[in-house]
């Protein structure tokens, strides 16, 4: 069940997605965390963040919107209070980094780089770029490339750029970060969405719009991963609406080397484990020798291999 993301070896291809598994210690009563391929931490920012005012969460059809505001303990308290526990784990720990300037991304990574126990970095570029009036870094190819370029020299560990789906052409972003030396790309982050309280005539989230996740977005995520897989050679990590082992296999088939389970953790924090064991069983039943053989194994008849057709 091993897979590789750059120099990092995962014992199985199933990670817990950033922001949906805390810092790993919250669920230890419920889950054998070491059964996961790895844990991606909540996004870490340079300073602690209180997060957005309520309401931060709205349920939608087969999905949910969130506007957490990247509430997190900040990198210093993470190092002091969370990392010691994470170091005791035998599974991979991936630190996810968020920031509102390029310098801040670099500062957080440098602080983490001085520590033991982190296997790789995942860079959340779906953050407001304060120098550009709050426009998300991740919707601008040049900015996304620049972040990668600045971070690359700071670490030898795998650098994973986490892409946003809220762009016309995600392949272009994947190509740009590959060009700057990223070891892998993970996608998708949440899809911009909104919910309205008709009676109150107001948005349901305090921030008006938020990020859509869950089964509702799985078809979008599969298409984005497929698109990215046509654009780059570096490993992809597929994310979006994964609830079952079969969902995870679908992401591998369209080109992912590993997957992350997000929203499903809120329903059952052990979802990652059941997905991982389910994939092992699935491979056995279907006669797949190594799970890595599934990556990109989708059979597409050449006649319709174009991404853009008449709908």
């Amino acid at each position, binding site marked *: 069940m091993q897979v590789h993301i750059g120099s990092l070896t995962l014992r199985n291809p199933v990670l817990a997605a950033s*922001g*949906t*598994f*805390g810092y790993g210690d*919250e*669920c230890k*009563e*419920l889950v054998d965390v070491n059964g996961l391929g790895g844990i991606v931490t*909540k996004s870490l920012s340079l300073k602690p963040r*209180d*997060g957005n*005012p*309520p*309401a*931060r*969460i*709205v*349920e939608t*059809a*087969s*999905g*949910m919107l*969130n506007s*957490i505001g990247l*509430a997190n303990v900040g990198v210093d308290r993470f190092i002091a209070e969370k990392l010691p526990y994470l170091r005791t784990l035998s599974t991979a720990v991936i630190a996810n980094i968020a920031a509102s300037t390029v310098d801040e991304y670099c500062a957080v990574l440098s602080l983490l780089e001085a520590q033991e126990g982190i296997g790789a970095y995942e860079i959340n570029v779906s953050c407001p770029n304060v120098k550009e009036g709050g426009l998300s870094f991740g919707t601008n190819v040049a900015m996304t490339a620049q972040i990668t370029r600045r971070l690359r020299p700071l670490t030898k560990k795998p650098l994973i750029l986490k892409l946003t789906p809220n762009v016309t052409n995600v392949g272009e972003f994947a190509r740009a970060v590959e060009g700057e030396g990223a070891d892998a790309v993970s996608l998708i982050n949440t899809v911009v969405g909104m919910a309205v309280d008709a009676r109150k005539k107001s948005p349901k989230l305090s921030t008006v719009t938020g990020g859509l996740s*869950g*089964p*509702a977005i799985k078809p979008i995520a599969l298409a984005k991963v497929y698109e990215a897989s046509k654009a780059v050679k570096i490993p992809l990590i597929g994310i979006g609406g994964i*609830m079952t082992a079969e969902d995870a296999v679908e992401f591998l088939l369209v080109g992912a080397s590993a997957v992350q389970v997000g*929203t499903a*953790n*809120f*329903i*059952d*924090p*052990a979802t990652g484990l059941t997905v991982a064991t389910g994939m092992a069983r699935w491979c056995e039943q279907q006669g797949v020798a190594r799970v890595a053989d599934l990556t990109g194994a989708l059979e597409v008849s050449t006649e319709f291999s174009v991404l853009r057709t008449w709908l």
Partner: protein
Amino acid sequence: MMILRAPVVSLRSVGPDMYVLSLHAPQIAANVLPAQFLNIKATDGSEPLLRRPFSVYRTQGENVEILFNIVGAGTRILSRLRPGDLVDILGPLGCPFSLESDFRTAVLVGGGLGVAPFPHATNALSRSSRQIRTFLGARSSPHILRDHLQNVSVATDDGSEGYHGTVVALVRNALESGSIDRPKIFGCGPEPMLRALARAAIDLGIPCEVSLESVMACGIGICQGCPVERTGGEKKYSLICNEGTVFDARTIKFS
């Protein structure tokens, strides 16, 4: 804290669109504390997607009970359960009421379905030597649920039973009369009611704990989706699901 599939023991109608669901869950029944809650998955599928939080209403031997009314899709599904059906529950969750602190009379104040945690709290309290006074508010008489409670006073919005007005006004009157010995207030109900209750408690210098609600995605502190604004502390927000649901009323910045 555990996840298990508990068989339905019974579902009984206890008022207009109100039900008590009894589940066989010995591991939870043995441990759950007053004002703790269960996070319940109503379906196997993705609609509704998230669990639904419900206070523990009562324990009865190896069974736990919740009280709910039909609000939307999730509670409608619960209302159609039948004995033997399996229900996926995560719990017990949240911090309980502090029933051990220094007071002589527990003043339980429930608004609407906010009565839910009090039968279990009453049971716990009745094992100590404390007094209990219970104040219930509701729209009108049929929505009042007095079962398994002690010394109940009632307020209704329409005056169809008891005091005609809010339950907080009723409690305030009773507390101001001075007839309640070393009271501590425990409140549960809609936010406007809790805000008024907190105000009254502060005015009268009486300790008060409130159990808060919020939309919740996880119920266990991993989604950061259930903040409440605090006064004073270093952090602006606390999480209702695992730093609460019970808070000292003075520390809450009601919206």
